[in-house]
């Protein structure tokens, strides 16, 4: 009952933050000579206008939901995972390797590809957890470094003969048997829309993670360590082990995001020229979602919508940086919920707390 109220409040404040962010965006749009109403209706239409737009929004949101979940999971256990970016990359790399080189029936190939991405991500995250537990290396640094190592590692593999598609800057496509496209849906939403099972898998992962976190002994341990590692240690919980497990699970989730992106959307990996930002956006998603699994889902969808729908503002000629300003403003207002609350209380004419 009480929880429900908090939930509603949070939702209300988030909606208001979004609204305020849009207002800032409107000011910027107006300042650059665009009609904000036109711009935003392009955006809304770009998100909800057609089934295929909604599908794209979901497709765009899927990796963000998972990297957000990854960051959130680590946060729940007291660790700051800036490394979802790198974990995503190695997950995508491993999935592409397994998806391309192995020839198997789909029923085995799909789970195997997904799992290999998960394992690679888990390993990558686990390294940071291990470095922290064994040598006290701050995970913020190690994950930033591992992001770049993953980046170059992926490029290294793509450059290898036999993996790289000749005369291209990409790997070969993975085998059909490793893809998770939903072919029948394409006839509904449009042939070019990359509808895939990713969102379903993401939902399943969210449920599993919520379950693990709140309903299992492992989750109990990890959360205890996250909230108070001294008390956890006292209660006999192995804090070092928890850190490794927690980072590994966080890595697994980001790795899964990478794998599913390959299996459902790109079907290959290309040479990276810059970090693509899946992991960094994941940090924002996690925090906007209050570091909870359900929050990551909602915030991931919001982010996906802003990024995909926002891109549609280009239709009226608005440059992409304006869209980033809108996104940034929304995050900023979500961060300053307090400001929003004060404003609402003022409007309600009620008393603000001491």
């Amino acid at each position, binding site marked *: 009952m009480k929880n429900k109220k908090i939930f509603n409040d949070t939702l209300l404040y988030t909606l208001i933050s979004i609204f305020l962010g849009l207002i800032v965006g409107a000011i910027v749009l107006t300042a650059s000579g665009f009609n904000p109403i036109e711009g935003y209706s392009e955006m809304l239409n770009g998100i909800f206008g057609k089934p295929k737009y909604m599908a794209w929004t979901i497709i765009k949101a899927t990796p963000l939901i998972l990297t957000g979940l990854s960051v959130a999971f680590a946060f729940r256990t007291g660790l700051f995972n800036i490394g979802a970016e790198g974990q995503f990359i190695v997950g995508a790399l491993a999935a592409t390797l397994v998806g391309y080189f192995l020839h198997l029936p789909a029923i085995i190939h799909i789970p195997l590809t997904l799992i290999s991405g998960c394992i690679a991500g888990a390993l990558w995250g686990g390294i940071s957890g291990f470095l922290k537990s064994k040598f006290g290396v701050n995970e913020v640094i190690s994950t930033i470094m591992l992001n770049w190592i993953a980046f170059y590692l992926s490029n290294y593999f793509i450059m290898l003969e036999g993996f790289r598609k000749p005369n291209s800057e990409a790997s070969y496509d993975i085998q059909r048997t490793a893809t998770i496209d939903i072919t029948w849906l394409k006839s509904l939403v449009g042939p070019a829309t990359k509808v895939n099972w990713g969102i379903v898998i993401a939902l399943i992962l969210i449920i599993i993670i919520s379950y693990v976190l709140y309903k299992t002994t492992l989750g109990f341990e990890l959360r205890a360590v996250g909230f108070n590692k001294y008390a956890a240690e006292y209660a006999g919980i192995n804090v070092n082990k928890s850190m490794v497990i927690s980072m590994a699970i966080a890595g697994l989730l980001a790795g899964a995001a990478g794998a599913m992106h390959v299996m459902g959307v790109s079907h290959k990996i290309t*040479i990276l020229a810059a970090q693509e930002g899946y992991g960094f956006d994941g940090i924002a998603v996690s925090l906007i979602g209050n570091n909870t699994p359900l929050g990551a889902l909602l915030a991931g969808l919001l982010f996906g919508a802003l990024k995909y729908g926002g891109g549609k503002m*280009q*239709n009226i000629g608005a440059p992409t940086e304006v869209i980033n300003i809108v996104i940034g403003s929304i995050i900023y207002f979500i961060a300053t919920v307090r400001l929003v609350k004060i404003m609402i209380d003022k409007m309600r004419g009620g008393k603000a707390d001491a």
Partner: protein
Amino acid sequence: TKPAEEGAGGEEGKNAIKVGMVTDVGGINDQSFNQSAWEGLKRAKDELGIEIGYQESKQDADYPPNIENLVDQENDLVWGIGFKMGDAVKEAAENYPDQKFAIIDYSYGDKTPKNIVGVTFKEQEASYLVGLIAGKMTKSNKIGFIGGMEVPVIKRFEYGFRAGVKEANPNAEVLIQYANSFTDSAKGKAIAKQMYSQGADIIFHAAGDTGTGMIEAAKEEGKYAIGVDRDQNSLAPDNVITSAMKRVDNAIYDVTKKLTEGKFEGGTTITYGLAEGGVDIAPTSDKHVPEDVLNLVKEYKNKIIGGEIKVPATEEEFNAMK
């Protein structure tokens, strides 16, 4: 000019032909081929009276939805700018068989779908010419080449350049280093400084923004640099002696023009070389390059156009040269 006027808004002009392009992650003002492509479209707008628009991409994953977005807006022709969009354009062409597409820097060979025109460039021909200039103008007989990443396009630049240097000055040595980045200017600058300190007096880059670091080094050291893609002389008027230009704008304009004339050559790949006006050296070259060298360049240009010389584009072809 305000982009708003150019945006593919789409209500009016039911008869005007509409052409849109999807940029790669560099964005519309990348001072490189995306921008060049957009300039080509703008020229087409001015001269052919068509409607134009673009969609910028932020991640590789944006290509399919952006292409689709332009298809949705009922463009007559949708351009993908850059090899990275190769697969995305092909898929879109399969999904929308009635829609025309074109792509820069990508060839599907004989498997080109009927509704795509592939456009590639003979980068090696332009870099061969700047190689000639470098070979002739070097005093130390040491010349540098900085590549962005070891990918086919950049390799074409490298081998064409080396072939040109070799042709003009067999004694000159070419120092080659790849920065492994198209964005790290500081690294480009460090590599260039290292090359200059090793005695190189001219460096050519095919490294995007990494190369601006190289031009900076040339400026500081008072040495020569050769730009790429566009005429980069404005970045260092005293130092950039020439640039190996890739006229994406010309190619875009050309293909678009054919479209308006009803001569869209779907199912083929058009290669733009010197002969087609697709590559060239920068018009500002005469500022620094002596007349006789320019004349030599002209001579070779004709030979290449005439087919007398085939410029190597790969390691094998380069090694095969005597």
